[in-house]
C-alpha cells in the first residue's frame, strides 16, 4: 500500500512537472521565443553562480561534518608516509579545484549572453598553451617524485629484525601462521590442505621448519614497534588484506604469494585511548570482491607489547603437535588414550 502511494505520488509529480513545462512552452509561444529564451538565459546564468557559491559552502560544510570520522592518526610507520603524501596531494589539488571551478562558473555567469556584447574571437595563444602545459607538468612531477620516493620506502626491503606472519585468505575468513622459534615458515603444498586432520595450511610435516609453526584463525597478534612482514596468500579466490589504520593493503592471490611489511606504532590499548572508543580493535577488511560473504570477511589484529606477545605465543601449541599428538611428549603423558591421527606424514 505504502509503495503504491509512493509510486502514485512520484507519477503525479512527474505529470505536474511535465504540465508546467508544457505550459511554459505555450507561454513562450505567446510572448515570443526570443524573449522567453533570453529570460531563461538570465535565470540559468544566475543559478550557475548560486551553484558555485552554495556548492563551495557545501564542500566546506561536508568537510566539517565528516572530517572527524575519517583518517585518524596513522598507526604504522608507512601510514605516516601515506598520510603525508595524501596531504601534499590535497594541498595542490585544492588550489586547482578552487581556481578552475570558480573560473568555470564565474565565466559562465559573467559572459552570459547579452545584446551589448560580442564574443571575442580568440582561437589560440601559444604562450598560454605553453604555460598551462608546463605548470601542470611541474606540479605533477613533484607529486610523482614524492609518490615514488615514499612508495619505494614502503615497498623496500624488509628490515632484518622483522617478524614474519603468514596470512591466508579464504571464503570468508582469515588464517595466520607464525614461524615459531626458528623464525622460518615451513614449506607447504596446497594439495596437503586437510582441515579435518588438523592441517588447514597444507604444511609438509617432513620439513622440520614446520614443527614449531603456530596456526591461528581470525585474530593476528603483532608486537608494537617491531617491523612485521606479512606473507600473503589465498586458498580459493582473490582476497585483499586491508589494514585501515596501518594504511596498508595487499591482495591475497591463490598461487602467487605476495608480501608487505610495516611497523605498528601503537598497541590496541593505546588506540582505544586515542580514539576514545573502548571497543576499538584493529580490523582486517577484505578489499577484493570474493563472493557473497565478502562484506563480512573480518579479521582482528591485536597489537601488544613484546612480553604480552611472547606469553600469547607460548600459550599456543605448534600445529605439528596438534596434528600429530603422538609426537608431543607432554600430551603423550597426559592423554595416553588419545588415538593417533591417521594421514599425518611421519618423518
Amino acid at each position, binding site marked *: 500500500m505504502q509503495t503504491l502511494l509512493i509510486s502514485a505520488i512520484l507519477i503525479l509529480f512527474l505529470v505536474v512537472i511535465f504540465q508546467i513545462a508544457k505550459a511554459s512552452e505555450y507561454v513562450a509561444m505567446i510572448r515570443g521565443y526570443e524573449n522567453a*529564451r533570453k529570460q531563461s538565459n538570465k535565470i540559468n546564468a544566475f543559478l550557475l553562480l548560486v551553484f558555485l557559491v552554495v556548492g563551495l559552502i557545501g564542500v566546506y560544510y561536508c568537510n566539517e561534518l565528516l572530517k572527524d570520522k575519517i583518517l585518524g592518526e596513522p598507526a604504522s610507520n608507512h601510514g605516516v608516509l601515506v598520510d603525508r603524501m595524501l596531504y601534499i596531494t590535497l594541498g595542490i589539488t585544492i588550489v586547482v579545484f578552487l581556481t578552475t571551478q570558480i573560473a568555470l562558473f564565474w565565466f559562465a555567469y559573467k*559572459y552570459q549572453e547579452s545584446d551589448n556584447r560580442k564574443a*571575442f574571437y580568440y582561437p589560440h595563444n601559444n604562450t598560454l598553451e605553453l604555460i598551462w602545459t608546463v605548470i601542470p607538468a611541474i606540479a605533477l612531477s613533484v607529486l610523482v617524485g614524492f609518490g615514488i620516493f615514499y612508495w619505494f620506502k614502503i615497498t623496500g626491503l624488509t628490515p632484518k629484525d622483522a617478524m614474519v606472519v603468514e596470512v591466508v585468505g579464504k571464503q570468508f575468513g582469515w588464517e595466520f601462521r607464525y614461524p615459531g622459534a626458528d623464525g622460518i615458515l615451513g614449506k607447504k603444498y596446497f594439495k596437503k590442505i586437510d582441515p579435518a586432520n588438523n592441517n588447514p595450511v597444507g604444511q609438509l610435516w617432513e620439513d622440520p621448519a614446520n614443527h614449531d609453526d603456530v596456526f591461528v584463525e581470525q585474530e593476528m597478534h603483532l608486537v608494537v614497534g617491531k617491523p612485521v612482514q606479512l606473507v600473503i596468500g589465498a586458498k580459493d579466490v582473490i582476497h585483499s588484506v586491508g589494514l585501515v589504520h596501518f594504511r596498508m593493503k595487499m591482495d591475497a592471490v591463490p*598461487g*602467487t604469494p605476495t608480501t608487505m611489511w610495516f611497523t605498528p606504532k601503537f598497541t590496541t590499548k593505546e588506540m582505544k585511548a586515542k580514539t576514545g572508543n573502548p571497543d576499538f580493535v584493529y580490523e582486517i*577488511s577484505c578489499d577484493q570482491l570474493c563472493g557473497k560473504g565478502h*562484506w563480512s570477511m*573480518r579479521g582482528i589484529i591485536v597489537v601488544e607489547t613484546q612480553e604480552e606477545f611472547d606469553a600469547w605465543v607460548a600459550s599456543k601449541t605448534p600445529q605439528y603437535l596438534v596434528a600429530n599428538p603422538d609426537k608431543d611428549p607432554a600430551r603423550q603423558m597426559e592423554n595416553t588414550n588419545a588415538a593417533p591421527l591417521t594421514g599425518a606424514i611421519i618423518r
Partner: protein
Amino acid sequence: MSETTTVHIADAKHATTHHGEHGHHQQSFISKYIFSMDHKTIGKQFLITGIVWAVIGGLFSVVFRLQLGYPDTTFPILETFFGKWAKGGQIQPEFYYSLVTMHGTILVFFVLTAGLSGTFANILIPLQIGARDMAAPFLNMLSYWFFFMAGIVMVASIFVQTGPASGGWTMYPPLSALRQAGDGQKIGTDLWLISMALFIVSSLLGGLNYITTILNMRTKGMSMTRLPLTIWALFFTAVLGVLSFPVLLSGAILLLFDRNLGTSFYLSDIVINGEILPNEGGSAILYQHLFWFLGHPEVYIILLPAMGMVSEILSVNSRKPIFGYMAMLGSLFAITILAFLVWAHHMFVSGLNPFLGSVFVLLTLLIAVPSAIKVFNWLTTIWRGNIRFTPAALFAIGFVSLFISGGLTGIFLGNTTIDIHLHDTMFVVAHFHIVMGVASMFGMFAGVYHWFPKMYGRYLNHTLGYIHFWVTIVGAYLTFWPMHYQGLAGVPRRYLDKGGWVNFNQFGELDKFITAVSIIIFVTQFVFIINFFYSIYKGRKVRTANPWGANTLEWTTPINPGHGNWEGDIPEVHRWPYDYGKDGREFIPQTEPVGASESKH
C-alpha cells in the same frame, strides 16, 4: 582523392531517387526502422536501446542503494518483484553482488560505450564530415544487432535460476572461474562472458567502420584539421576500441576455457569448499592485465566522445571558437596513447612488482597534463564569450565541472603511495562515478539536447531540460562528494552492510542521505525520458535548418534529412568549423569560401 570518388558514387545513386519532402527510396517498415542501414536510424537505435539499458542499470543501483542506506529495514515490495533474491524483503548478499555486477556492466558497456559512442558516432560522423552514410552500412547494421544480441543474452542471464553473474564488472578469476565459488559463478557468468563476446564483436564492427569512414569519406575540402573536435574524439575512441577490445575478448575466452574445458590459464593452488582442484601453474594476475588493457582505455572510450561533444557545444553556445584547436587535438592524441600505458594502475596492490608500479605512477600522472590542457582550453573558450545557456550548454558546463572534480581525485589514486590506502574503497567508487560515469552521462545528455533537432526535426522541451540538469548536477555532487570521505575512512567498496565493523559503521546517516538523493536523481531521469519520447512526436518543430547557428555540416542538411543526408551535391568545405565571432560576424559556416579580405587566424 578518395573523398571525391565516394561522393560521386553516392551522388549518382541519390540524385535520381530523390522524391521531394519525404524522400528517398521506397522502403518497407522493416528495412527503414528495424534492419535499417541508414546511419541516422542506427544511431537512434543505439540511443533508445541505451536509454532502456540506463533505466535498468539505474534501477539496479537504486535497489542496492536501498540495502546500503537501510541495511536493517525490510522492503516487502522487493520480495514481490525479486522473490527468493530478496527473501523477507531483505536483499540477499548473492543478489546484492549480482546487482552491483549488472549495474557496472550495463552502465559501462551498454550505456556509456554503445549508447554514447554508438549513438553519436553513427549520427555525427557522416553528417559532420559530409558523407552520405558510413563506409560499410551493412556492417554498421550488424554492429547494432550484435549489440542487441549481447543485450538479449545479458537479459537472459538475469532470469536463470542461479542468477546473473556476481563477480563484479571486472569479473576477476578465480572467483569468476569457479562454479563452486557461489551461485552467480554458475551459468550466469558463462552468459555474461558470451554477452561480452558479442558486445566486443559489435564494438569492433562499429569501430572499424567509424575509422574507415572518417579517413576515407570526408567531403571535398574537409582536411583532417578541418574536422570538428567531435569527429576527432570519435575517431580516437574508435582507435582505442579496435586496439583494446580484442585483448578483452582473449581474456574472456581464456576464462571461458578455464571454466568449461579444464584449462589453467588463471588457476593455481586452489582449495574451494574443501575440494582440492588439480590446476597448477596459472596466474590470476594475467587476467587482470588482459582485462585492464581494455579496462583502462575503456574509460577513455567512454570519456572522449563526451569531451568532443562538449568542445563543440561550448564553442557553438559561447559564440566563440574553441580555444587551441590544435592543442585540443594534441591532447586527445596524447590521452589516446597514454590510455594504453596506464592499465597497471588498477593493480598497484595486486602483487605487481613495485618497480613496475612506479613506472605506472609516472605514466598515470602524466595523463593529467593533457587533461589539464583540455580543462584550461574549455575555460578559455567560454571566457569573453556570449554564452547561451541551452540545456546542452548547461550539461557541457556541468561536464567540465565534474571532469575537474573527478579528474583531481584521480591524482590521488594514480599515486601508488596513496592508492595503497584508497584502493578498492568508496573513494574509488566516488572517483570513477564522477569522472567517468556522471561526467560522460552529462556529455551524452549535452549531445542529445544539442542534436535532437537534427535527429527528429523537433526540439526537446527546454524547461524540462533545465529541471533535468539542475536536479541531476546537484544530486550527482550530493551523492558522490561525501562518498570520498567514506573512502578516506577506508570503507571498502561492495560492502552491503557495515554494521559488524568497528571502524566502518560511522556513516549510517550519510548512507541514508545518499540513498535518498540517488532515488531523487533516478526519478528525475524520467523527466528526461518523458521529454525525449514526447518530443519525438509532439515537440516544438524546428523551422530553420540551422537552429543553433552552428558552422558544422550537419546543419546544412534538410531539417529532416533522408537516407543520403543531402539533397543534391554534398557541400564543399572551405574552412575549419570554429569561425564564430570572426570579423564581426556571428558565425561563418564551413561551407563558405574564405573571403579575400578575411582576417587570418
